[in-house]
């Protein structure tokens, strides 16, 4: 593990790994998950512990440092970047009792913790915990994670979900050792191929109560910018760098192609095409705007956490900024892809990978119309499930 003194240690640690990813993109896609050696490199560099609380011995990076680090790796390879950001589940340890978290870390130092927020399982209470059954889709990184945080509906012994005060099902999340889960080989996708986002299944897995949290309604046990707002804000901070990295890569490739490639039948570089000039600068500008907004929105949340006032509107604005970045990145990638002609079609060409990967990432439920409208309701001051921002 590196010494985490410089504020940009994580970005510096990521750079050489990112540089090496250029030769690994085919491996990563073929493996359909992050190859073991890369997992070990990320882990050894401390990059799977960016969000591990300082009070638990972790580096607890500043949100903007996480953003830059995730962007750097995503720029090199989107699947690796996604695996990195989704592998920051050790940040969820902030919601555990510190003593319990400490014991978990003692057994698994610098753990990779995967997660699924979809309450796709049921947990029946026992004397000292829950018995968990279920199957969760899209658990990125499950093959190399040490633990998985899984959402479940609390159920009575007959399996019927228990309702809370408002009639909604009672949802909790459990830290489960990966060894107690079955991974089902389901991840055959057109984009983000290398993220190992398989289904995982639990069958009568016993989870002690101390490893069960309620992060939708309870605050983290640890303060600080990463955890002080909400679990969703934490997730948004992890995710923010991804679209910036993929969009950046697309525009780098676009500019390089424009300088290198000539217009058909001429010696004139594509860069001299007026449409290329127009499209490139607008795309650059919109991606810069997306980044500027993310920085501002994260800053606002951090500031609000400092005042203990990270209310739903400021959290919703962070989420909206991440949606905006993802949408912008998708548009930027399309612009770059279309401008670069048929040579962008080959699997070896970064732009077609950017195209597939950004489309896959944008299919995440956080970017659905339902999510956007929820943010709209909060913006308009209407009743909304504010625990979902």
């Amino acid at each position: 593990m590196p010494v985490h003194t410089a504020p940009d240690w994580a970005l510096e640690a990521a750079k050489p790994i990112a540089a090496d990813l250029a030769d690994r993109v085919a491996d990563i896609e073929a493996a359909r998950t992050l190859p073991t050696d890369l997992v070990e490199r990320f882990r050894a560099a401390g990059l799977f512990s960016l969000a591990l609380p300082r009070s638990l011995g972790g580096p607890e990076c500043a949100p903007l440092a996480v953003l830059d680090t995730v962007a750097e790796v995503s720029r090199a390879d989107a699947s690796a970047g996604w695996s990195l950001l989704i592998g920051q589940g050790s940040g969820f340890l902030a919601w555990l009792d510190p003593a319990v978290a400490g014991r978990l870390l003692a057994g698994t130092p610098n753990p990779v913790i995967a997660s699924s927020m979809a309450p796709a399982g049921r947990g029946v209470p026992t004397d000292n915990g829950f018995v968990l059954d279920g199957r969760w889709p899209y658990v990125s990184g499950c093959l190399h994670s040490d633990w998985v945080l899984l959402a479940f509906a609390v159920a009575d012994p007959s399996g019927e979900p228990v309702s809370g005060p408002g009639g909604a099902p009672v949802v909790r999340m459990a830290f489960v050792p990966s060894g107690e889960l079955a991974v089902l080989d389901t991840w055959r996708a057109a984009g983000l191929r290398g993220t190992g986002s398989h289904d995982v299944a639990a069958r009568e897995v016993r989870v002690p109560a101390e490893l069960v949290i309620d992060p939708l309604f309870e605050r983290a046990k640890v303060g600080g910018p990463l955890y002080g707002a909400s679990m969703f804000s934490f997730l948004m901070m992890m995710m923010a760098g991804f679209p910036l990295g993929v969009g950046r890569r697309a525009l780098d490739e676009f500019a390089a192609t424009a300088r290198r490639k000539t217009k058909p039948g001429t010696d004139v570089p594509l860069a001299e095409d007026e449409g290329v000039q127009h499209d490139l600068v607008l795309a650059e500008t919109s991606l810069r705007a997306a980044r500027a907004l993310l920085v501002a929105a994260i800053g606002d949340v951090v500031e609000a956490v400092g005042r203990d006032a990270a209310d739903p509107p400021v959290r919703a604005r962070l989420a909206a900024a991440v949606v905006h970045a993802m949408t912008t990145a998708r548009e930027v990638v399309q612009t770059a892809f279309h401008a670069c002609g048929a040579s962008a079609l080959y699997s070896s060409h970064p732009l077609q990978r950017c195209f597939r990967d950004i489309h896959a990432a944008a299919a995440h439920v956080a970017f659905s119309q339902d999510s956007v409208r929820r943010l709209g309701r909060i913006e308009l001051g209407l009743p909304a499930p504010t625990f979902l921002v």
Partner: protein
Amino acid sequence: MTAVALDPVGAARALAADLAAGALEVERARRLPPALVTRLRAAGLFTLGLPRSLGGLESPAGQIIDAVEAVARADASVGWAVLIGNTSAFLAWLDPAVAKTFTAGPTGTVLAGSMAPSARGEVVDGGAAYRVTGRWAFASGCTHADVVMGGFVVTEDGVPGRTAHGAPLLRVAFLRADQVEVHDTWRVAGLAGTGSHDISVADVVVPAEHTAVPFAERSVEPGALYRLTPYTVLMVLFAGFPLGVAGRALDELESLAGTKRRVGSGRPLIEDPGVATAVVADRAALDAAGLLVRDRAERVWARVAAGGEPTPAERADLASATLHAFDVGREVVSRCFTAAGASALAEDAPLQRCLRDLHAAGQHIAFSADSRIRVARTRLGLVVPPAMFAV
């Protein structure tokens, strides 16, 4: 079976279910499997563009559009292979007696290759032949083609020739498929099943009468289809493709949306007003694009069928209709994919294949910024420099 008895549109529709079921297999093979090629041939789907003198249908533009749309809707890769295979229309630029030597049989002759001048042809035998060496990319269908065309720069003693205008002297060579080497290069995300590998020849001597300059000469065959410029022939062949692929995407989304619910949502996707209005609006936009393509193709066809020639503006109108169909189609597949959410991610999900395939097809050089500018300037009556893809 004679070509005249064939009904490629009906046959394409009859094949649709089988094509849709086999799409993943085609994608994995990265080419059309031989048995499938045999079925497509038998259905007459490789006779649409082929001259009648070679056993083809010389189909009217509208029939070509319908047939390509139907096949592309079932499987975009097969649709693409069918439309490229029908560039056998360019055999009309050869002397019919020469062209006949390429004929493959009663069920059509499949052409592959590229007019792009990425080879050189040295004048030999005092101009009676060219010794051609070069390599062409994106040769869709080369694994099942009968004939291959390849553009080359004419050289004498290694020096490229020039036209009167100072442009490089270009020709297109027609070769038997067994004369070219196929390089296994087609590893792609979109149109994966089209086998659009690189092909090459080295020092193949091609008789001059096996070469032509379709983008500068009139066709030898008198048929209506061949009084179109080569770019216009391509635009007719392409036109049905986006209609089929984007139409499929809408069908898939509509079918999925009837049952799928988003995580935490109490209603099927189709009950989402944003999804419902987008599906209907996109269907309108795509139908409009289809009507435009057919209307403008009919206008051009009315000209050539009457023995006349379409005006440059009419050719540009047809081209801009095909461009419009691709543009609308790409937007439609993108929106459908996005609306479907994670359900469309799996590599056997037709929606993500529609996305990949249509965006890949849109990268063809015929739709490049340069081509669009040429189409626009032609339509507006502005000066247009000569070009291979002249409208």
